[in-house]
């Protein structure tokens, strides 16, 4: 099935899990555990995903064509000899991530205008 012309707006707003998984994959393909580590690091452990949430989100994102499975291979950085499934962003996934990031950025901009952010308070 072809989803390349699907409108990313249909997916917005994204859940924190989906947004963070897309963000983790933005700079290259990763396996499940790699995604989990990246999300933890990116969010300073504010978003903790267990395997259930991680693979539940991955399943729905694969169905929605936001990500795709690239291949299965051994991670050379780990001693575990078992093969791991790697995932990467699709074009739709990248466009959806960009739109969500822009949406969030506009919210932050609004918060700045309303002087909600701590940095703005310091200027007052």
């Amino acid at each position, binding site marked *: 099935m072809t989803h390349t*012309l699907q409108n990313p707006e*249909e997916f917005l707003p994204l859940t924190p899990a989906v947004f963070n998984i897309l963000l983790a994959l933005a700079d290259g393909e990763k396996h499940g555990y790699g995604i989990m580590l990246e999300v933890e690091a990116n969010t300073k452990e504010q978003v903790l995903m*267990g395997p*259930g*949430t991680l693979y539940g989100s991955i399943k729905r994102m694969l169905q929605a064509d936001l990500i795709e499975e690239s291949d299965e291979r051994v991670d050379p950085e780990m001693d575990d000899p*078992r093969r791991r499934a790697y995932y990467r962003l699709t074009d739709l996934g990248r466009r959806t991530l960009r739109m969500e990031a822009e949406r969030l950025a506009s919210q932050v901009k609004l918060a700045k205008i309303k002087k909600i952010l701590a940095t703005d308070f310091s200027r007052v």
Partner: protein
Amino acid sequence: MISKPLNNPIITVSIKVYQALLLAYPTKFQQEYGSQMAQVFQDCCLRTVRQGGTNGMLKLWAVTLFDLLQSVISEHMQKETDMNKDDFVRLGGWLLMASAVAFLPGAIGMILSETRYAIRSWDSFPFNVVAFAVFWAPVLLAVGMLGLRARYKIGGGVLLFGAVVGGLLVIVGTLVQFLTPHYSVSETYYGVWLGGVFLLYVCLFIFGILALIQKPLPRWNALPLIAGGVPLLRLLAGITTSSLEASLLVIIAGYIIMTIAMILLGYILQADASQNTASA
């Protein structure tokens, strides 16, 4: 990243327990992702023991059990939704095929009756069966269109609007025609029925144009456009042909092509039912 597995009985037991708990997920999900989830859980165990010692395992289990409970419920609910949706989409595919088969003989008969026979002379078998089928076939088409909408999320509400409004007009038009003996009333509601049919096909035709551009079907994306071409066919027949016989031939040939397209579209829809596109 994480390094070699530890020969730690707590990790070994934890992994075995987690693998047993994975049985709580729907079978399909478990088959697809169970081994990967167990692998990730093992990685988490190794990291936790390395960083936080055995005590860290308590926190890991607390987080994992909460995650497991939450995701097991979510996956079972998702499975129910998918199954209901799959069944509806599959039904929609079969109804598109049924509507095409039911519509064709009566549609051709009604064209011929406009010039040669009065439609109300169809009071004996098999004409009454054909008439009954042609009047109710658009209702099957309306449900089939809802199945198309459930499966291929393009075109905004065009299929929903067509199916609901067109379907209602067809039902009202048909019921009043069959229940009202008064000729003038019956004729008016024949117009209501015809309007409903026209609306159904126009909306399917618009969906067909979008399908041709966005290609949501696994193959043969021109089918909805061809299947929904009834209103255009009438117009085309009037423009391109001058004689009555030639015009009738064009319309009948068009109906047959559209019937084939509708059957193929229904076949694709019911075959494609279990490959749902989920919202993330």
